[in-house]
């Protein structure tokens, strides 16, 4: 089985009144069965309320299944003995940058996790140094978190998680409260961690540009998995994504609109380069001699 596996996962939020009687049951996850391979960069997309954040919390045993099972590296999260092992293997980064930083200075916060694990002092320092390097925040190690930008805070949070040497990192909308530059910072950091350290990454988000480089994109709606494939496959279904209250990058949308109006462009254009590759030859035909093709763009003639 993959590093993360869920089987017929169901989760209900139960609201009780003062006498502990059930007032309202809201089904947030409605039968999700997924198998995620180690080392992959997987994105989970969904509008607010689709169940994606609730799903993320299942993976760290912050919430336990109402029905069904969640296995992290073969361990059933609902078994009490497994709790701390599960949390050691799965690191979580949350949405609010401030509300997950405990230390008064950066390096102390990164050391918080290893301290909890009872790691010897010398080893803690080794891990803190390596983690700060891996997210590019080593220069800020003595700074107070209050002096950092949102993107920097999230990178510190990621370092804090990395210092626990997890097998996979789950990031629950880590960029929702950041400005565009901060978002780019965080996604770049996470992508590099996945590439260099081979750590499995699960990125939960509703920003489409962030998932272009993912290995696999899963779309959730109403507590269910409704789309599952490569970024190209998912982004070619523009209308379906919009029906799930999601958006596509402007480049993809433009390609789709052109395609709708008869221009011969393949599905799932994700980047500017791909769009140019497909459009420039057509313009070269239309305006011979005027249009230069870029590098690597095939000449239509």
């Amino acid at each position, binding site marked *: 089985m993959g590093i993360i596996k869920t089987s017929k996962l169901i989760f209900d939020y139960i609201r009780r009144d003062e006498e502990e009687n059930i007032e309202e049951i809201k089904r947030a996850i409605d039968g999700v069965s997924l198998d995620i391979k180690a080392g992959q960069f997987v994105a989970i997309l969904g509008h607010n309320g689709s169940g994606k954040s609730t799903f993320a919390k299942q993976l760290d045993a912050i919430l336990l299944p109402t029905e069904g099972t969640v296995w992290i590296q073969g361990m059933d999260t609902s078994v009490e003995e497994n709790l701390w092992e599960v949390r050691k293997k799965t690191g979580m980064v949350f949405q609010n940058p401030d509300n997950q930083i405990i230390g008064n200075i950066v390096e102390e916060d990164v050391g918080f996790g*290893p301290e909890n694990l009872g790691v010897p002092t010398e080893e803690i320092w080794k891990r803190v140094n390596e983690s700060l390097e891996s997210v590019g925040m080593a220069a800020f190690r003595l700074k107070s978190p209050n002096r950092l930008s949102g993107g920097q805070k999230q990178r510190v949070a990621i370092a804090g998680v990395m210092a626990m040497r997890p097998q996979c990192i789950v990031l629950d909308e880590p960029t929702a409260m950041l400005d565009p530059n901060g978002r780019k910072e965080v996604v770049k950091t996470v992508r590099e961690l996945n590439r260099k350290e081979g750590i499995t990454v699960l990125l939960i988000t509703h920003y489409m540009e962030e998932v272009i480089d993912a290995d696999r994109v899963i779309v959730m709606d109403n507590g269910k998995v409704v789309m599952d494939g490569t970024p190209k496959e998912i982004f070619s279904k523009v209308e379906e994504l919009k029906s799930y209250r999601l958006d596509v990058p402007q480049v993809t949308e433009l390609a789709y609109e052109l395609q709708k109006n008869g221009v011969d462009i393949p599905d799932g254009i994700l980047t500017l380069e791909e769009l140019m590759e497909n459009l420039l030859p057509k313009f070269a035909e239309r305006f011979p001699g005027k249009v230069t093709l870029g590098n690597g763009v095939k000449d239509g003639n």
Partner: protein
Amino acid sequence: MLKDITLGQYYPVDSKLHRLDPRTKLFGTMVFIISLFIANDIWAYLIATFFLISSIRLSQVPFKFMVRGLKAIVFLLLISVSFNLFLTPGEPIFRLGFLKLTREGVKIASFMGVRLIYLVVGSSIMTLTTTPNQLTDGLEKSLGFLKKVGVPVHEVSMMMSIALRFIPILVEETDKIMKAQMARGADFETGNLIQKAKNMIPLLVPLFISAFRRATDLAMAMEARCYRGGEGRTKMKPLRYGKQDGIAYLVCLVYLAAIAGLRIMG
């Protein structure tokens, strides 16, 4: 911008004082405070002044940071000094209407003033040379024996550390909420005491809710990083006494003895 003004701001520099164990500095500060209340003649105060100035030099923190804390007590200082100056019975040196300036008054007022100033500056040295984490670690270690009688020393220390971390954040949030409510016409200035208290509700309710939300998020984040209380935790920066601490303890004890001695003899 309020973020920049943190409580007892730490001034990062590698001085002898910075390198001392926080427990040593806690002890030193305590000794100094006690000495200020024991001292009651000019010689004792001179020794105290010497002790204070040496500490300031050793800390390598610019003097202007030391006196920043004094701004907060300017009012208190003025009141206690003037009270003692004019309301102490004794041999009058100067008369201004019904206000009597006495020799005893001058003596007590100056001692009182100096004491207050030294108290603030002395404590500032502590907070300027010790990070909040070191402080709470120091308290946790030195009060560790209380664990045996059931006092949750680690938990309290963790709470203090987290509180210190979030104070600037909550201060900024208070400012934001105040402005948001003022944009809706809220008035935090006019009215009698009861009015003002009522007017605080649009400020306090959102603030509390926000604080609770942060606390919930933080608890979740801590658990996600395998926090389960003090059992089995190791320390990234364990407190270990060094030679300089021994010397510092000795110096403090000698100082205290000197002050006490002067008091007993004088």
